[in-house]
């Protein structure tokens, strides 16, 4: 194994670092979108609107059953098809490529959201009745009760599950290379093809993913210890 291949400047270090940034940005944007979708989904699923709740349930089942790759293709090609149809009357012809990064964010975020929704539902169910009754007794309106009492308590129950999903989503990001995104794994693959040192570059990429996952688990452990203080556990 020749480690000088990974050097910055003369080696592939700069390209790999750019790939890593793409991976991190994709994971972060997907997690933000997915967590928001999941929170919204959980609120609808636990609301009294039966039809809407059922739709959310169906969305969750479908998203958790389909391969991420299929969702990525559907979003990427689906959107470019729609754009093509929209632009056709204006004389734009042929394939309209949309940005692989944002298609990836949308696709992975949608899947992430389906899993998050489940975590949030469990967390809302775990909030004890006492604080909510106290809030009602104090005359707090529903919205302030939710924002200042229910949501902070639920977040503590949801955090371990949410952090776990961050790792799952980070691991799903290399799939977006299938629609042309130059993420860390894709760059490592290109470097391997160019230099014929596949093993070196894939091991380097593996090490980076493992370090990122370990970092997330470390943060998770810290947050959990802090949160459990407040839960009195």
């Amino acid at each position, binding site marked *: 194994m020749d480690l000088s291949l990974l050097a910055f400047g003369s080696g592939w270090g700069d390209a790999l670092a750019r790939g890593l940034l793409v991976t991190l940005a994709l994971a972060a944007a997907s997690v933000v979108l997915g967590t928001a979708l999941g929170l919204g989904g959980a609120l609808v699923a636990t609301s009294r609107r039966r039809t809407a709740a059922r739709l959310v349930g169906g969305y969750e089942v479908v998203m958790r059953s389909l391969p991420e790759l299929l969702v990525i*293709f559907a979003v990427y090609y689906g959107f470019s098809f729609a754009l093509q149809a929209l632009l056709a009357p204006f004389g734009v012809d042929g394939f309209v490529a949309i940005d692989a990064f944002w298609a990836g964010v949308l696709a992975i975020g949608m899947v992430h959201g389906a899993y998050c929704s489940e975590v949030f539902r469990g967390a809302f169910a775990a909030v004890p009745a006492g604080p909510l009754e106290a809030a009602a007794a104090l005359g707090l309106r529903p919205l302030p009760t939710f924002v200042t009492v229910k949501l902070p308590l639920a977040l503590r129950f949801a955090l371990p599950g949410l952090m776990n999903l961050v790792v799952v989503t980070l*691991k799903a990001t290399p*799939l977006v290379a299938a629609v042309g995104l130059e993420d860390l794994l894709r760059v490592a693959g290109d470097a*391997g093809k160019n230099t014929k040192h596949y093993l070196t570059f894939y*091991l380097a*990429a*593996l090490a980076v993913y493992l370090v990122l*996952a*370990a970092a997330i688990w470390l943060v998770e452990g810290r947050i959990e210890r802090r949160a459990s203080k407040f839960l009195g556990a």
Partner: protein
Amino acid sequence: MPDLVAGLGPYLPLLLEGARTTLLLFVLTLPIGFLIALPFAFARNARNRALRGLGHGFVLFFRGAPLLVVLFLVYYGLPQVPGIRQSVLWFLLRDPFTVAVIALSLNSAGFQTHIIAGALRNVPANEVEAARAAGFSRPQVFRFIVAPHAVRLGIRSFGNEAVFVLKGTAVVSFITVRDLMGAANQVYFRTFELVPPLVFAALVYLAAVFAVSRFVRLVEWHATPQLRRAR
């Protein structure tokens, strides 16, 4: 549905062949992963610290490594390990399908180790003590007390893992194995019709997941006497 099938017309055999490959990967990966996971699960629960560390490390590795990285490492990386082309393993690594089964099984073994070890650990100790006091031998305790209870505890997580394995098989199209996802993609590139092949693939995946969850519920019902009595 009839429209969909008609739209696919000449490409239906290609898709069905892909679906067959996907299901084959699934039914091979899950049991092979289980067989790899068993020793690691026992190591994870062992009294020996080094063994416990080994089991834990195995789980953490696959929980942290993207499946695609594992797949590429086995497919592109392993043949570059010095000496491997001369070894007996080489005939396994030449065929993309076998590589896919190896990578998927190893990855699933990591998660199954976690599930099996957790289920075995959570069987109440007093049940084991009671059985020992009643004169059960150690193998008998495992066969009649620990194993059935562990199945009851782990079956749901195992079902979730089965769904992950099924979804995970879609990555094999990256190494030229033509599974359902790859076939759907190919139909799209030949016909420039997006919806029919993707919907066909999605329906097959959904049906397979539905079948898996039904099967898991059946096993759970059989493994849990109190569920049966409640009816």
